[in-house]
């Protein structure tokens, strides 16, 4: 008989739900793509595949910088990080033990995306 672990099931369902939301988000206007990294796997969907490595490095560096800075200033665990350049924006956040980075054009409302994902 197969015994299910309710906690694991709940997390897996949450991740499936998150991935469904990301599929919808990636088709929205101004969204460049996303990187979702879990403890065992990662999914990347970017409009320009040539940028995968650069964006993956930026995503990882953003989380590291966020963690270092919040630790140094005793600000507690990181909730969200926003990195902005002249034309592009990056929203990074932790969800269910996964690191999510969404790349978008500057005019996209990242607060709305955050509320939809949390």
């Amino acid at each position, binding site marked *: 008989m197969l015994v299910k672990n309710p906690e694991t099931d709940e997390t897996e369902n949450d991740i499936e739900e998150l991935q469904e939301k990301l599929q919808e988000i990636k088709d929205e206007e101004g969204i460049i793509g996303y990187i979702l990294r879990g403890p065992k796997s990662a999914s990347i969907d970017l409009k320009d595949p040539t940028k995968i490595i650069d964006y993956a490095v930026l995503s990882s*560096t953003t989380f590291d910088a966020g963690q270092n*800075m*919040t630790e140094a*200033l005793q600000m507690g*665990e990181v909730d969200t990080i926003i990195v*902005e*350049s002249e034309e592009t924006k990056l929203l990074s956040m932790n969800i269910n033990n996964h690191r999510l980075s969404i790349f978008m054009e500057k005019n996209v409302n990242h607060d709305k995306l955050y509320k939809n994902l949390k």
Partner: protein
Amino acid sequence: MNREPYAIALSNAMTEIKKAYPDIKNSFIFTKNGTIITGDQETDEKTMNNILESFENLKEKAKAIGNLKSFNITGKNGKLTLSKIKDMHLLLATSKNADKNHIYSITHVIIPTILKTLESFAPTHLQSPSTKKLVVDTLRFFAGDSVQIDVEILRDWTKNNDPRARVKAAITGEQNTQESINQVHIETFGGNAAVCKVKEINDQKLKGKNMIRIPEKLCKTLEINKGDLVKVKPAL
């Protein structure tokens, strides 16, 4: 440039801002080259350097999306805002419930105004007498690699300001002049600098406007644009 008076003025301004906005817990300002100009007393140097190191690394990697303009973190116990203001970066760490409008006012209105005011004082209080603060105008490609400055400024520089030379000139009756200026030292407010050849401005319409005309290529190297202010002095 001697940055000490600049840093003191900025530090005083930051202290007053902190009094007015108690939600600010930590704050410091650094140049794009990573030199800390001023910081509040609660943030020790080790913490500032630690943050700076993380930021420099992020800035490098963020080139994948263009030049980094701002960096914001919302943590469980507070917010961190890192904004680019002209050639500087301002870091503000606030309580989680800090008013967004207050932070915006500080990063987009108050600090830029203070920096601009301090820069406008710079020629009279913070610089050596031979240094001129000039407005940048760009020279298009094929205009050569020399910068152009008003002939009056070049003449002024050729007068020797050394008191001993003045006395000597008075005694001997010789002209109190140095050799003509062939090169100038240009420094931006972000700390970038270059030495280059100089000529007088040849466009009649642009004479007497306290302007320096710089080839576009050099503007890019110095990371300056038309209308920016730069400090210029003779390279002897």
